[in-house]
């Protein structure tokens, strides 16, 4: 059967699509600096976090000031997403800050962390919660 040879332009176009896809995948792993760190409609704040590759597992640290240890919910969703939700003690208000935020009482944190590689959800473990810093580890598949 005759197969038409691909032109160089088609090959370049495919390659560009592949690069674009890879760029999108990689950029989804990093936080967008222009994304606000709060969501007024859901009354939640986005906490700071860091992710560290320890070889066969990932370690995630999430800064959760004003949170009591019993008020944290952490779980792995799908094969590459960590979700952290925590209740803020007494709620937080920023009386003079901004136009929308000043009218909101923030009551919880919500954080979504995407891992660069799939992880085993059953391996998730809380290493510590000290001085308001949550440290969790999860094994790579």
């Amino acid at each position, binding site marked *: 059967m005759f197969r038409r040879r691909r032109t160089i332009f088609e090959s370049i176009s495919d390659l560009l699509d592949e690069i674009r896809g890879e760029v999108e995948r990689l950029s989804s792993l990093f*936080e967008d*600096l222009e994304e606000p*760190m709060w969501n007024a409609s859901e009354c939640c*704040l*986005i*906490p*700071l976090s*860091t992710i560290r590759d320890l070889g066969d597992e990932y370690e995630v640290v999430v*800064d959760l*000031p*004003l949170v009591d240890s019993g008020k944290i919910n952490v779980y792995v969703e799908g094969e590459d997403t960590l979700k952290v939700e925590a209740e803020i003690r007494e709620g*937080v208000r*920023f009386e*003079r800050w901004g136009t929308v935020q000043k009218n909101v009482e923030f009551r919880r944190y919500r954080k979504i962390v995407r891992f660069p590689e799939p992880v085993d959800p059953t391996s998730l473990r809380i290493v*510590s919660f*000290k*001085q*308001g*810093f949550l*440290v969790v580890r999860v094994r790579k598949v």
Partner: protein
Amino acid sequence: MDVKIVGRGFRESWLVVGLPDAGLVGAISAAHVVRALGLEAVAYVESELLPPVIVVHQSKVCDPMRVFGRQGLMVLSSEVPVHPSLVYPLGKSVVEWAVREGAKGIITITGIAVPNRLEIETPEVYGIAGNSELYDVLAKANVKSFEEGFVVGPAAVMMKEGIKRGLPTMTLLAQCFLEYPDPGAAAQALTALNRILDINVDVKPLLEEAEMIRVRTRELMRRTAEVMKQMRKGHEYEVPLMYT
């Protein structure tokens, strides 16, 4: 490109510099001193290298990088991170301005990130001084000297420029988190500053409100962390060649 400090300072006064850096130690310290002592803005930094930002405080338009002060003490504080392209011209301009205004000297407060910060209850504060007399001042104030290592960022430039121009210059480095605001480290740095300058800035509020400060400074920390990566702040973890 130019960096100008617009405004007058106070003669024979120390200039304390606290810019956003590791753990926001400098920025939190500077903001706290300004608030605790009720210092008024006396000058501001003007440069096209700064982001196109104004800060509105109590309906008043302010520059994001300002000098506050009174006779005896001035504080340079910033509400925006210092972009790498601003580090050299800013450092040089600050030292030049301090010399021109007849300042007694410069003390920069910054953080030195330590990986095990979570295990440390009371962070240590180390000092670097431009000459041996100033090392004596640090020793009298019970500040250990920082013996070997790299310092990256505005503190490094100000130290070099200060030495070059014969202006008494010191740097205080408090052990801290790299990418999380660290009011506890700022409190220790200010305790050392109190002893060095024989002043009495109450650090208790910093410790009592530490959690709220961490919430309020998340955004500045996120932007500062991004800038620190470009500045190769991680260099501070490394061992200098001459030590090996």
